[in-house]
């Protein structure tokens, strides 16, 4: 019987929805599904995890050292908690990507990155080459499986009425002091979160400046959408780096994705392959973005975007 441990991701005392997506992946693997909450004040996070359908138990470890997610501090605790598990999962977000290879290496096993599909408990499909090839990988059957879950491939497990039991863990492990949190500069806004939003509007290099990018924000606000960007727009300083969508940025799966003044380089398309409907606005009828767009509109964005905003009432 599989025993799957999911390392919860959380921010500001709240469970990140990426964790609920890992639960869906774990349900496909099958077995007992437990969630590990490592936090300074884990109670509210643990309760949110316990409510997720499919979770059989939550293990919660309070420690002031867990106030910030430092991989070097969390990894030994994950290993102590994972002793009798067959699988350890975390989302393939910057949190999971930072932490899980450290866990895997300490356990002396490989890590499977970006689980897209589960064939069986040790066989998984994952993307390589910016998603241009999907490989089936077989992990050794006699070792613990350490993996990150490509969140865009899995729906969020729903929160139900039933609550799994919460067990407080005292993890007696030495934690390193060589890595210290200094600050988080967060471009917090009232807009929906890019990674979980059902609608996203993104702008590219064509916007030309941070000021011009305001028309993207205005359209997004009209749609109740999150805002994303191409690498070129981030590199040029129009928007912060946490808005980059793509192979080396965020991989997202909104119901609606609107790409404005974005050419559609493979590195960008990797990030939006799982979007429900893709809309592209570009002045170049030959732009590769139109090859993946469900609805394409050719023309000058500086004319069309305000028009679209108007038309949406």
């Amino acid at each position: 019987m599989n025993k799957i441990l999911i390392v919860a991701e959380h921010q500001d005392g709240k469970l990140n929805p990426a964790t609920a997506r890992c639960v869906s992946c774990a349900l496909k693997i099958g077995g007992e599904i437990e969630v590990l909450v490592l936090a300074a004040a884990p109670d509210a996070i643990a309760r949110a995890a316990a409510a997720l359908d499919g979770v059989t138990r939550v293990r919660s470890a309070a420690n002031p050292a867990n106030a910030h997610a430092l991989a070097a501090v969390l990894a030994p605790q994950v290993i102590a908690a994972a002793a009798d598990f067959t699988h350890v999962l975390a989302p393939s977000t910057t949190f999971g990507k930072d932490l899980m290879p450290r866990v895997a290496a300490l356990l002396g096993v490989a890590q499977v990155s970006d689980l897209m599909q589960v064939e069986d408990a040790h066989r998984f499909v994952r993307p390589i080459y910016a998603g241009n090839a999907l490989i089936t990988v077989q992990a050794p059957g006699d070792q613990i499986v350490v993996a990150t879950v490509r969140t865009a491939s899995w729906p969020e497990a729903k929160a139900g009425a039933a609550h799994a039991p919460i067990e407080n863990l005292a993890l007696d492990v030495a934690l390193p002091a060589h890595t210290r949190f200094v600050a988080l500069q967060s471009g917090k806004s009232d807009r929906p979160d890019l990674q979980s939003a059902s609608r996203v509007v993104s702008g590219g290099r064509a916007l030309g400046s941070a000021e011009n990018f305001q028309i993207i924000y205005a359209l997004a606000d009209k749609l109740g959408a999150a805002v994303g960007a191409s690498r070129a727009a981030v590199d040029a300083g129009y928007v912060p780096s946490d808005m980059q969508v793509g192979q080396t940025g965020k991989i997202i799966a909104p119901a609606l994705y609107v790409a404005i003044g974005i050419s559609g380089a493979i590195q960008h398309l990797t990030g939006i392959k799982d979007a429900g409907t893709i809309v592209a606005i570009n002045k170049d009828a030959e732009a590769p973005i139109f090859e993946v767009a469900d609805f394409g509109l050719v023309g000058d964005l500086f004319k069309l975007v305000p028009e679209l905003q108007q038309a949406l009432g």
Partner: protein
Amino acid sequence: MKILVGYKRVVDYNVRIQVKPDGSGVVSEGVKLSPNPFDEIALEEALRLREQGVASEVVIVAIGAADLQAHLRNGLAMGANRAIHVSTSDAVQPLTAARVLLKLVEKERPGLVIVGKQAIDDDSNQTGQMLAALWDRPQATFASKVEIGADKARVTREVDAGLETLEVDLPAVITTDLRLNEPRFIKLPDIMKAKSKPIEVLELASLGVSSGDHLKTTHYAPPPKRGKGVMVKNVADLVAALKNKGLV
């Protein structure tokens, strides 16, 4: 201080890779190979630290096939002092790469190791973190700014929530993100100079690391294609189409 830099050769980012019809792999014959873009950023950062007087020597490492010499010459032409080629004909997975790098760390005793956050072929995003774990040293992944102090580094990281700053004791492992710097172009005289720079070749097996596969790739498939969409004539048609699908 010496800096060790991961310098992997990958399929060029402009190549649209094709899966072989029988699912046995990807077509690699004749495709353009280039240094991993994140490793060029890693090397650039190391060179800048040397130019600032923070580092004294920059050593690049590539693990892979026997024909990596020309690739390493690129890195030497960019400015690395010397290169180490760990030679193996096997595909090297991140855990093996990390174990090899650990052996080199024990030998070279660098004050800093800089690797790319991911190699753009396998997109694993693991090697730096694994090396830090095996070495029992700090990691600062996805770096967009690096400041080196007396025996510590302050690193700004591109995380999902924004920009996070960490302070780590040295030695440490840093993995690079795109905004850390813009790598320099190689000039012709540098290519000439690089010809006399040393490349040390070590057999992977001689390091006491087995290249045995941890994960077996059993099948390759092309990604599902999105159906071709439609072009709409104007904004009104677009809004109508979106309304029709219940999206607005």
